[in-house]
């Protein structure tokens, strides 16, 4: 993976210039609001992967996930002036992504995951020399079954499970995103795991 160091000069006070190296998200938001479009490009670069993956977990295919992720960033840009900074920008983007994805899932019946030729299916790659192609295939198939079962969970359970397991958000942050209590989030998570177990058994 290529790691880039970002640096730019901005005017802090008349006559003074400050060089910012690897600006924080808060600094980037401030720069965006001051009209620096490249700051938003950097926000996109930092968060695009997580936003895309979250959308993918809801829609189950690359094409819709990339469209949704793009929509998330456009909406974020539009609403940036309303970003209060109480949560991190990552959490804020997750909130937008959850809303956008749930709206899409409600409007459109999710299609079962298909083989996507554009993707290098990581779960079908030979991960290491220790894993045979047959084992990799089996692991890939298992992952696909789990993803399809997750797609059949009720919306709140699915959202909770995805944010907790794949994005490792604390229960408190998930509660903030869903507008529920921490207890409700944990109960949702419990039911999600139990229901998933039943769905996977049915699928056998």
């Amino acid at each position, binding site marked *: 993976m290529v790691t880039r160091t970002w640096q730019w000069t901005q005017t802090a006070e008349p006559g003074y210039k400050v060089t910012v190296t690897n600006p924080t998200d808060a600094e980037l938001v401030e720069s965006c609001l001051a009209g620096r479009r490249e700051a938003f490009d950097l926000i996109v670069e930092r968060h695009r992967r997580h936003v895309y993956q979250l959308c993918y977990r809801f829609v189950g295919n690359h094409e819709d996930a990339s469209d949704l992720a793009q929509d998330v960033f456009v909406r974020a840009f539009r609403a940036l002036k309303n970003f209060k900074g109480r949560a991190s920008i990552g959490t804020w983007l997750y909130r937008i992504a959850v809303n956008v994805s749930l709206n899409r899932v409600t409007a459109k019946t999710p299609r079962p995951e298909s083989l996507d030729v554009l993707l290098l*299916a990581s779960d079908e790659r030979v991960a290491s020399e220790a894993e045979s192609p047959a084992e990799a295939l089996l692991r890939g198939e298992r992952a696909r079954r789990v993803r399809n079962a997750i797609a059949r969970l009720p919306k709140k359970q699915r959202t909770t*499970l995805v944010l907790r397991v794949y994005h490792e958000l604390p229960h408190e942050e998930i509660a903030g995103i869903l507008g529920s209590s921490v207890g409700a989030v944990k109960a949702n998570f419990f039911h999600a795991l139990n229901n998933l177990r039943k769905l996977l058994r049915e699928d056998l």
Partner: protein
Amino acid sequence: MKHLAPEEFVDAAEGRLPVARAGHLETCEACREQVETIAGMLRDVSAADLPEPSPLFWDHFSSRVHAAVAHEEIRARRTWGWTGARILAPLAVMALVVAVVAGSLLPRLVRTPAAPVPAATTADVPSLDTEIGVDPDNVEVWAVLTAAAADMGIDEAHAAGLGVRPTTVDRAVQRLSKDELAELGRLLQSELKRSGD
């Protein structure tokens, strides 16, 4: 002791169950089994990673977002321009109508006697054919007129007998400067377009 609640099963599976409740697990096999099931499901679910897009996808994605945001900026500016025009044009037309109506009403209002006029002073009252002009530079008079006419529609004014004489509007238009005429034409055209939507 009470069995674990759903949220406590989650805490137990994540290794965060308070010590006070952890004691229950040692004695309750049913709860222990449930915790193991939940923990096993967590492991299975965590292992289900996603297909990874091509490395080329990310740069392409960033370019797409960049273009979409640029388009969004243009759209926002256009929307504001159109919204602004939609708000300001009717206001401007209303202001013009108010000005014209007020201009034509003032002479009548001034002519209308507030109380019976003593005979001795009737000679001083101008005849109906005489138009009493309004000093166009008198800001206070215009403020009073605008305030008085602000809530009054043309139909209402007609019903109250405050009609505009046929020649008044023509004369008002004739008095407009070249720039004012151009602006009036533009406003009327935009109003016509708007009403045709």
